């Protein structure tokens, strides 16, 4: 197992290195001065120029430049944003929690509703129920997320006026970021309005979270259903039934753990599209996360922000995919067997 983990770590490092090489090459291709693209300092004075040149080793060969670039980026120097003059790393730290919050809530929603519905679809002997559930999930799967987001905000925000459609919180609430998770911060806040602020934050997250949850939800339902159908035909389930075990016990105790394994695998595969969906959702609902930050950076030709955003998103996706793979391997007895057999 240790050897397996080391190999995964190795994979993570190698992929990240490739990512850095690509970023380094792209940075030098930006249609601006190299110094500006690297640091975001618009008109540096002589002292700053000297500093930049030593930091990034600009006067030596490409290889040394790359090493210096790697050193700077890994030590957290992502430059400053040209539009706000703040360090990109700071901005990143303030936008990332918003994205994680949104992703966590939609992930939870998808699993919370997806797993039971998938089980229900597989157990139901009713053709109508089965077909209805499958029709709904197929529809959900094929709806483009930008259309869904706009439609939901048009209906529930503009026409009905039930839910707010942009941002994380009514801006009149002054909540100091502690964890960066608005749902937590509002509760931690000592302001007399903290309870109302919490409910306001909940209302704000509903529409973006639902929009983002639709895709993983449909995938979870479909995969759970097909996995459950296969498993429920297995002999050990029949044996359990023969022994007179309660259906709920069979399902929850004996079938579900095995059905979850392919779900986890598909979640890992979906990570990339989930991230790009998250960006679209953030832009639609003006959710101040990394996606809308990156898109604004692109419009503002803020090259340091673009690099920082791409780096962060790519690193997170690489890391999470590998983590999900590790998780998948560790709970899947079959792949454990393969693992030891291959080693």
């Amino acid at each position, binding site marked *: 197992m240790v050897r397996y983990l080391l190999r995964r770590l190795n994979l993570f490092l190698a992929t990240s290195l490739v990512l850095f090489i690509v970023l380094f090459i792209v940075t030098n291709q930006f249609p601006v001065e190299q110094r500006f693209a690297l640091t975001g300092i618009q008109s540096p004075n002589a002292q700053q120029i000297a500093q930049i040149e030593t930091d990034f080793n600009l006067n030596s060969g490409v290889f040394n430049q790359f090493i210096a670039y790697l050193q700077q980026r890994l030590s957290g120097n992502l430059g400053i944003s040209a539009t706000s003059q703040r360090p990109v790393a700071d901005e990143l730290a303030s936008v990332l929690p918003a994205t994680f919050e949104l992703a966590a809530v939609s992930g939870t929603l998808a699993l919370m509703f997806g797993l039971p519905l998938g089980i229900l679809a597989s157990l139901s002997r009713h053709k109508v129920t089965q077909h209805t559930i499958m029709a709904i999930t197929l529809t959900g799967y094929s709806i483009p997320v930008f259309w869904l987001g706009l439609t939901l905000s048009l209906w529930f925000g503009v026409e009905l006026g039930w839910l707010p459609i942009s941002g994380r919180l009514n801006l*009149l609430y002054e909540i100091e970021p502690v964890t960066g998770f608005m749902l937590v911060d509002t509760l931690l806040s000592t302001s007399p*309005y903290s*309870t109302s602020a919490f409910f306001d934050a909940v209302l704000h997250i509903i529409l973006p979270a639902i929009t983002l949850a639709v895709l993983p939800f449909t995938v979870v339902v479909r995969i759970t259903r097909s996995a459950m159908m296969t498993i429920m035909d297995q002999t050990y389930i029949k044996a359990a039934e023969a022994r007179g075990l309660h259906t709920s016990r069979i399902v929850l105790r004996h079938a579900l753990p095995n059905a979850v394994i392919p779900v986890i695998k598909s979640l890992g595969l979906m990570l990339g599209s989930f991230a790009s969906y998250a960006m679209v959702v953030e832009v639609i609902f003006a959710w101040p996360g990394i996606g809308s930050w990156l898109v604004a950076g692109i419009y503002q*030709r803020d090259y340091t922000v673009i690099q920082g955003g791409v780096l962060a998103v790519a690193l997170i996706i690489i890391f999470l995919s590998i983590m999900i793979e590790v998780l998948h391997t560790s709970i899947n007895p079959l792949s454990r067997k393969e693992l030891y057999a291959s080693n």
Partner: protein
Amino acid sequence: MSMLIKRLSRYAMVTCLGVLAVGCGPQRVPPGLVYCSEGNPESFNPQLVTSGTTVDATSQQLYNSLVDYDAKSGRITPSLATDWLISDDELTYTFTLRKGVDFHQSIDFTPSRQFNADDVLFSFNRVIDTNHPYHSVSKTGYPFFQSIGFDKQINLIEKISDDKVAFHLNARDASFLSNLASGFAVILSEEYADGLAIRGEKEKIDRLPIGTGPFQLIKYVKNEYIRYHRNEHYWRTLPKSEMLVFDITPKSTSRLAKLITGDCSVSALPKAGELEVILAHDELVIDSQPGFNVAFWAFNTQKPPFDDVRVRKALAHAVDRENILRVVYQKTAVNATGLLPPMSWAYSENKPIINYDPEEAKRLLKEANITKLSIDIWAMPVARIYNPNALKTAELIQADLANIDVKVNIVSYDWSVFNQKLSQHSYDSVLIGWTADNSDPDNFFTPILSCSSVTSSSNRSRWCHPDLDLILAQARSTTNIEERKKFYQAAEAIFASQLPMLPLAHATKLAFKHKGVSEMELTPFGGISFTGTEESANQNKPKEELR
């Protein structure tokens, strides 16, 4: 099996009820006002910029000027100066300063003294004196002051006593007081600047502003919001709302949606097509004010072929401005017959500056020996008061010019990039405009067409015409209204004959707001004031009723 389904459905029901319960919970919102603004300010010191977005976010909220302009009476009124004396030769203006005015207090700065003459000296010397330690802190210069030649205009600013300051001018200037009343001539704190200089943090002065205005900056998050708190020591009547938030929303449709859902109470710069939506909502109202502005299509006259007046006229003849008025402004603007809007006292009804005549356009182009012309039109990415939709305007012009075989390429960037690239002067032509900073007609000529403004960023045509400069100088040197009116008409005539830019329209200044919002002031000039704004009927908001 049925047990399981039952349990699952119960579980689903509880979740749904939970969500509903959250929705029904009591909502208490802190008192304050949210204004949906259209973009990020470039700085928090209006001295450094000419962009209306920045002026909106700073001039009226954070600072005061020495004098104010009262739009109703058309007079200059006291602000930080209680009184002023003009010498007989009109070369010396002596201001008596107000006592008991406090500056904002922040984490970085606790004022130990009140506003006095040193602050006035600091604020203006920073702009005009190139050796001033704070002069070069600004990377963008002082475009408004450069464009009106402020440094050449002023000989000396003299401190007579702690509450008396004298401005000695080099030449008589009828627009001097009006310029001081504009949103750019704000008063900063000298004590704050000194403290920052000692700590070597000079650049903070424009980023973490300290002023005397009704609101104080608390927090600015780029692309998201600007939060202000009421200045509890404000020397005038305290504004009613304790908090003011600018919700930065670049998209016009998003601003409208936020207004409808109640996320903001006032929304800036609507597109004309959205008026019907507002009329359909009973709780929303439209504020309007005939604008002191002009939208124009400026040709880069220092770049061939636009240095040829025949080419400029040919392009102007080919554009159907009535159509632009109808499509882009939808009757919320008046046709421009020159630079001055009808509201200005120097305006007189001219005949249309140029008529729509594609045949004449073709003839002029042939005369100038130009074939296969292909030009770039830079269109602003954001809505401005003078032009709510520059991109659409550009598309209309593109279609019009196609009729005379001129190919148009539309260029646009995000606002900050757009501004930056404009200052590099590589464009062919640009769709932009000008909102007056004060009522003086000079403000429509000197900042945007004089030779001294070519170096600053506000002269978009990069046009320098000595005759026009002479007339403008003469117009400024007298205070006789009738004489001045004649001079400005002469200036209009030169403008019409040379046509460095094609004026398109004078737009009505519009803002959407909730009915409960009282006393938000739209001035005909740049800037928006929230002094005294408060949402009176907070409970009556439709959003609250639905919850």
